[in-house]
C-alpha cells in the first residue's frame, strides 16, 4: 500500500523540517491524501520524488503561515530522537555530550533557509540520491550539489557560533 511505503519518509522529512509534531502530522496526512488522489497520474519511477516535492511544498506553506520562524525543537521530538539514540550509546557521559551536540545540530538545521534545509535533510538524513532530490525540488542536479555543500557550510558556521556562545 502506498501509504505504508511513504508514511515514515514523509513524516521524517516534515518533522525535521518543521520541528513541531502536530504540524508534521498534518503535513503527512495531507500528503498521503494527495498521494491517493493523484498517484495514478504520476510516473511510478518518479513517485518518490513527487511525494517529496509535495511534502516540501506543504512544509513551506506551513512555515509561511507561522508568525515566528525557527522554533526550538519540540520537547516530544527531543524525547523521540533521544530514545532512538541513547539506547545505543553505552557511555553515559559521552551520550550526554553527543545528545547536546545533536540538539544544537537540530536547532541549527531548523534555522537554515530553504532550499538548503530541505536538501540537507533529504541527502544527509534521508539518504536520497542527487537525481531524486533534483527531481523533487525541480532544480538541476549540479545545483543540488552546490546547495548541499553551501548548506553544510552554513550549518558548520552556525554550529561554531552556537558552541562559542555556549562556552562563553
Amino acid at each position, binding site marked *: 500500500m502506498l*501509504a*505504508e511505503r511513504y*508514511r*515514515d*519518509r*514523509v*513524516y*521524517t522529512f516534515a*518533522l*525535521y523540517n518543521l520541528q513541531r509534531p502536530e504540524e508534521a*502530522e498534518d503535513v*503527512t*496526512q495531507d500528503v*498521503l*491524501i494527495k498521494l*491517493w*488522489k493523484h498517484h495514478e497520474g504520476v510516473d511510478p519511477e518518479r513517485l518518490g520524488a513527487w511525494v517529496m516535492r509535495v511534502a516540501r511544498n506543504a512544509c513551506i506553506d506551513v512555515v509561511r503561515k507561522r508568525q515566528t520562524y525557527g522554533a526550538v525543537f519540540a520537547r516530544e521530538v527531543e524525547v*523521540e*530522537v533521544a530514545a*532512538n*539514540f541513547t539506547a545505543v550509546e553505552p557511555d553515559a557521559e559521552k551520550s550526554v555530550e*553527543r545528545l547536546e*551536540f*545533536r540538539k544544537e*545540530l*537540530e536547532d541549527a538545521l531548523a534555522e537554515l533557509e530553504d532550499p538548503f534545509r530541505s536538501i*540537507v535533510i533529504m541527502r*544527509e*538524513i*534521508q*539518504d536520497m540520491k542527487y537525481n531524486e532530490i533534483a527531481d523533487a525540488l525541480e532544480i538541476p542536479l549540479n545545483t543540488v*550539489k552546490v546547495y*548541499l*555543500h553551501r548548506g*553544510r*557550510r552554513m*550549518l*558548520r558556521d552556525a*554550529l*561554531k557560533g552556537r558552541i562559542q556562545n555556549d562556552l562563553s
Partner: protein
Amino acid sequence: MTSRDRHECEWVAAHVDAFLEEELDTVDRHRLEAHTRACADCRAELEFARQLVSELRALPQLDCPDHVVSAAERAISTRPRGAWERLRAAVDAHLAGLMRPAMAVIVIMVVAVGVFVLVHHDRAVNGHSRVAGSADTNATQVTLENVSEEELQMAARDAMIAFAYVNKYTRRTGQIVKAEVGGRVAGSVRKAMAKAIVEASPFGDDSKEAGQ
C-alpha cells in the same frame, strides 16, 4: 599568515565538502590533502566537516504515528471515488445553496401537476365539469383513487426533470435565468392552479354568471 596562505585556507573551506563527497579531481584532492597536513586550522575544519556529516547521517528516521495514517484513510474513504460520484458531489455542493427555493418551486410544481392530472383525467372520463347532486348515474366520481400512484409519480418525476433543466441553465447563465424562469413557471403554475380550481368547482364556468 600570508595572503597566499589565507587564500589557500579559503579555497580549502570552499572545497572541503566536495572533498568529502569525493567529487574533486586528482589535482585538487592532492592540493587539499597537502594543505590540511600543513595547516592546523584547515585540518580542524576538515575534521569538523566530517563529524557534522557523520552526525547528520546518524539522525534517526522517525516513525509516523499510526493515527496519522488512520486519519488519512478515513478522509480518503469518505471521498467520492468514481467519476459519477465526483459529478454527483459537485452537483450536490452546487445545489446545496439553491435547495430551499428549489424545493419550494418543486413542491408547487408537483401540486400543480398533480391537480392538473386529476382534472384532466376527470374531463377525459366525463367530457364535462362535475355538477354536484347530478342525477346522471353514469357520471364517474373522480377522486384520487381513480388516479394511479404510477401516474402521480410520473407527474412528480416530470416536474423534477423540468426543474433540473432550470438549474442546468441557471448554472450556465446565473441567477437571472432562475429568477426569470422561476417567475414564468410560478406564473404558469398559478394560472394552471387557478384554472384547475375553477374547473373543479361545482359552479364550473358559470361562476361568473352566478355572480351577476
